[in-house]
């Protein structure tokens, strides 16, 4: 089966029963998406499928035929960091950084759908993502900052 990740075609190999996170990390060496819980409860593995945030750890690849998948590795481009990534740096958000990819993917989807989210909308969209270091208030600030810089 063929799968499109970050605008590139990949062959998934013979086993189409694996989850997307497994394919990304173990087979394609795209390790930016992280394993955190294996049950879609922490958001560390979040990627975008046709623009929607999904937990890749519980998403079988056979459900992804002809879908466009975006992972953290596809967010920055030749011209440099995405303004959202820059906003996370500007707010000096992260401590251990393990949740970073998932946080950026979830908030990217939010901002693409709602360019100027309210604080409540941010919290409700991000509530599936865990930052155990507790940097939540800075993540909210970074998303607000990006909502301005992305315009």
């Amino acid at each position: 089966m063929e799968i499109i990740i970050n605008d590139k075609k990949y062959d998934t190999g013979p086993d189409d029963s694996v989850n997307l996170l497994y394919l990304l990390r173990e087979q394609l060496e795209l390790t930016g998406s992280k394993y955190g819980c294996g049950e879609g409860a922490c958001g560390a593995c979040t990627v975008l499928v046709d623009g929607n945030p999904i937990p890749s750890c519980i998403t079988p690849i056979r459900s992804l035929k002809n879908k466009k998948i975006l992972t953290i590795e596809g967010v920055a481009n030749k011209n440099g960091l995405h303004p959202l990534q820059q906003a996370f740096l500007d707010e000096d958000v992260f401590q251990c950084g393990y949740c970073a990819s998932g946080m950026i993917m979830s908030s990217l989807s939010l901002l693409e759908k709602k360019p100027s989210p309210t604080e409540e909308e941010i919290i409700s969209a991000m509530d599936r993502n865990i930052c155990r270091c507790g940097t939540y208030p800075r993540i909210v600030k970074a998303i607000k900052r990006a909502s301005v810089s992305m315009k």
Partner: protein
Amino acid sequence: MRTTPTQLEKEELQPSSLHKFSLDRRKFFKMLGSGVAITFLITDSLGKQLLGEKMSGNGVDDTTVNAWIHVGENNVVTVYTGKVEIGQNIRTSLAQLVAEELYVAVDTIEMVMGDTGLTPYDRGTFGSLSMPVMGSLLRKAAASARELLLDMAAKEWKVSKASLKAENGVVKNISSKKSARYGEIIKGKKLLQKVNQKIDLIPADEWKIAGTSFPKVNGVSFVTGEHQYASDLKIPGMMHGKILRGPAYESKLESVDLSKAESIPGVTIIRDGNFVGVVAPDVRTTEKAIALIQDQWMTVPKPSRDEIFDYLVQHADEGRGDSKGDVSNAFKNAAAKVEHDFHIDYIAHVPLETRSAIAEWIDDKVTVWTGTQRPFGVQEELMKGFHITKENARVIVPDTGSGYGGKHTGDAALEAARLAKAVKKPVKVTWTREEEFNWAYFRPAGVIDVKASCTNEGLLTSWQFHNYNSGGSGIETPYDVANKEEKYHPVKSPLRQGSYRGLAGTANIFARECIMDDLASSIKMDPLEFRLKNMTSPRLRDVLVAATEKFGYKNKKSAEHGYGIACGEEKGSSIATCAEVVTQVDGSFKVLRLVAAFECGAIVNPSNLENQILGALVQGIGGALFEAVDFKEGKILNASLSHYRVPRFSDVPVIEIVMLN
């Protein structure tokens, strides 16, 4: 295929008495090129060896805190410290301190951290010691290197050192305007010197680089997903491993049928007593193989969560601690008294990166890449487990997906090393979240029994504080009381337990501050006034006043909301927090607002410090309101993130932080 067992299960461990190092002076400079290097303490055996001094037999103490700084002729400054980066951002803040004293830019500094093959011994990254202890050492080492460079320039230019100054990686002659970059002064030379312990340091109020909110040095690699945690690493020829787990802590394997699992092509099974591990070319096959093993375990009788608190008190030992005065008499005769016991649950650290390690053996030497707070502790575990010398066990720690005191051990590292040794190939072991909940260790559960009394005027008269199992950290009351008894009673915990962020400080301070409130309420005195009346520490008073002022403690009071204050001193820092809380329809609490004032001495990176306080407050909400490990007969009942609740965005109140510098 089945292989012969390794020696790990037999616990007749022989600590190595060898003090050999793979790095000597020649190799050190070969690795780094010419330059000047400052080693910190002469008591460090590796430092001694580098300096070419004879080691004093078995009496070598290489456990002293140490670090080295090297300035190369390429103008790169390399700092070697055994500390690790687990999210506290010390890779940045320690570099700032070195940059400040050495007069160089932060981006010319390379921090080599947590690699037992390259960095001097370090006990571990815990106990809030990195900044006060390692930070101070690095300042002295950097200042010593700077003075050495100035001395070298003075000698070469035949001028007095007083006519020279260091600035942005350059030595300048103030009068002649002659200048040279550090690298030019070093050119071809190889100098190694001890740190000057008495060197003058730049006072904090003159800091230009330290004291600023320098952003995380490798921050970009985290927002692009490029940073490779231990769990992201892959090495050539690497296999994957998975361990067969019993149903509960300390259960024993009674019988096991490996035949079905062994029949899977490519699978190797390693059995050694209780230890059964599988190795396969990919993770999926290891999972399949584990699922096909038929195993019977014998569990050890253990209390359940509803029995644990009685159990801990019943199984406690005599305890240790201080007492003074006549506590029972003072309590008996007091005008106002309060008695209460507090139950502290086991809680899980839940570092978002689970334990993971790759181990590779080349002949008798093992190299392990893993996320841990104690690289040298893991090295010792490897030495003991495999009967190998220090030089044959190297532990490398990439910046790690957090720990909070939960990664002091090398569990996955030892498992990977055991499997790798058996199959003679590199093996990676990454724990699932379920394994992390079941087989890592917990913040200790405990019972805190308190009896306290005061006069009607609000002066404390007696204080009895007994902590069963949760820990002695922060047990000492900062309030002035003539009669007191404070004891910590350790218990052999039925569940695996260990360090936690702030250790027992959170539990002890919570209990103490609750009692302070109850005493105040029993004599109808305001809790703030009551605290201030009994407080002697000016630092604690300062943070309490700062927090309550910022919070508007005296004005804003709604009848529907609860308002609370608490304060404490721990690890040389003082903190006071005010909270506004509301009871929700279901009876649970929601924290609406927190104001914390914190004072920890000179602030090296304000943004980072604020971030750490923020994170600690958020994590504290979890422990205070809903985090608890549930267990029955030793089996963990909520070993997943859908059942063990940690704070999320929607739990976070408005937070304001005041930092006193």
